[in-house]
């Protein structure tokens, strides 16, 4: 069984995000970039499937700038087998990403796609569902537990109010939620080994997909700031304040 894991290079989750003064976007110059945390979880899950003998090959694909090679190397160091980088100059929108992934899948024929539920930059939470739609494959989003056999996956999903379990026939698209697993740190020998693994370099044109944006970003602004309030001495004073605010 072949597993495809799409990964995205995003601003590191520990970095404080700054909006550019000209309101054209977020300042990414000289900022630490990392693999999207949900994609790390997806990579971990795919590598575990290989270690369990369920998967035979884990292929990682990224769409982004040249530097996204580093993101792919991170996944290869975690245990993925090879990578594909589709180089684009601009951040592709979710629908364009889904179309590119569909084209990759037409060439690679994986049995399963495991990917992060959302990237922490655009927070769209859309590509996995869109990819499943374009392929007419079943989907299981927000997975917190995954069991895979030859022809189906049993997926526990995080839903409002609790958990839902679905059976999906393969091939299928699974998106990873936070609690699916805890990703490993790559060991130094594995990082060295990953340098020798193959990354195929492609462009969007190779797949005949138009990645020009359909949504026009008019501006990016700072959210309204909340200022610190006051410290109150005790519970009685607090209750008095809350009553005068009308929230109790």
């Amino acid at each position: 069984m072949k597993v495809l894991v799409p990964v995205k290079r995003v601003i590191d989750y520990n970095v404080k995000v700054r909006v550019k003064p000209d309101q054209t976007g977020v300042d990414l110059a000289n900022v630490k970039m990392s693999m999207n945390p949900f994609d790390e979880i997806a990579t971990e899950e795919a590598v575990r499937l290989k270690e369990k003998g369920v998967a035979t090959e884990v292929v990682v694909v990224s769409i982004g700038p040249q530097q996204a090679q580093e993101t792919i190397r991170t996944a290869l160091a975690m245990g993925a087998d090879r990578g594909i980088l589709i180089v684009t100059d601009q951040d592709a929108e979710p629908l364009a990403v889904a179309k590119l992934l569909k084209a990759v899948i037409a060439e690679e024929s994986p049995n399963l796609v495991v990917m992060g539920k959302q990237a922490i930059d655009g927070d769209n939470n859309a590509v996995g569902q869109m990819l499943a739609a374009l392929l007419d494959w079943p989907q299981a989003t927000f997975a917190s537990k995954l069991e895979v056999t030859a022809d189906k996956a049993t997926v526990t999903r995080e839903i409002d109010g609790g958990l839902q379990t679905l059976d999906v026939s393969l091939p299928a698209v699974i998106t990873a939620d936070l609690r699916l697993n805890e990703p490993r740190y790559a060991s130094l020998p594995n990082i060295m080994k990953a340098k020798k693994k193959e990354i195929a370099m492609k462009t969007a044109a190779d797949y005949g997909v138009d990645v020009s944006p359909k949504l026009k970003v008019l501006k990016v602004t700072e959210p309204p700031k909340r200022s610190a309030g006051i410290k109150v001495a005790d519970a009685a004073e607090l209750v008095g304040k809350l009553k005068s605010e009308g929230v109790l």
Partner: protein
Amino acid sequence: MAVLVIADHTNAALGEATAKVVAAAQKIGGDIDVLVAGQGAQGAADAAAKLDGVRKVLLAQSDALGHQLAEAVTDTVVGLAGGYDAILAPSTSAGKNFAPRIAAKLDVNQITDVIEIVSADTFVRPIYAGNALETVQSSDAKKVMTIRTTAFKAVGETGSATVEAVTAAGAAGREASFVGEEVVKSDRPELVGAKIVVSGGRAMGSAEEFHKVIEPLADKLGAAVGASRAAVDAGYAPNDYQVGQTGKVVAPDLYIAVGISGAIQHLAGMKDSKVIVAINKDADAPIFQVADYGIVGDYKTVVPELMTALG
């Protein structure tokens, strides 16, 4: 101009999110229809018919829709999409699951987590966990979007729209099938729509302490219970209590954070609350930077005092 709102519901009952998505639809303008896609969902449809501003309620029923599986909801909506310029779903776990699938089938982008409708084609949405707001203009023929319901005020319930049965999609060949569900039954209000939320953090130290401290305070206030990611990861509270970037986004009138330090990812889920109260023994905890009222002290003494002061 016509807008289709996909209802949040549990078949028997309509979810609170629906009235808020209808409010967002009113800002777009035009006729508003509500689709209830479920099984045995007459109750939800009748409730949707009472929402102000709704032209008609479309009721689609099949076994596959009973659990709102994405594949069946998508096929049902795509069959109806011809008559609408915009399709709106709430940013609930169900909405987030099926809406992008609908968008892709219609060959359009989805606009996720809309918090403001500027005009019929221009919308504001948070990115980077709410650390930036993006204003986007869509040139797509049909707008498919999910609505962050905390940003909209529910419409009233004095309407009397008609309920009309529409064709429901059944299970196609290769599908997802429902196995089971564990939904926590609670008498407390739903976290996302609650007027008051009491949340506990890692300082609780154990699940027992969380039950003993947070739940009685919540019950005294008629509040919903929330938790920080740290408390959930430590096993003190179940997953669906999590408030934050990767959990639920809430904006109650009153948010009480007990023993929560205020990591960015937690603040992303609650900073739009009207009044925020923080109880923490660390005076430098970041939660105090967003709190309207703070008490520096050990929750073990402050919470019992608060219970007494509330009478």
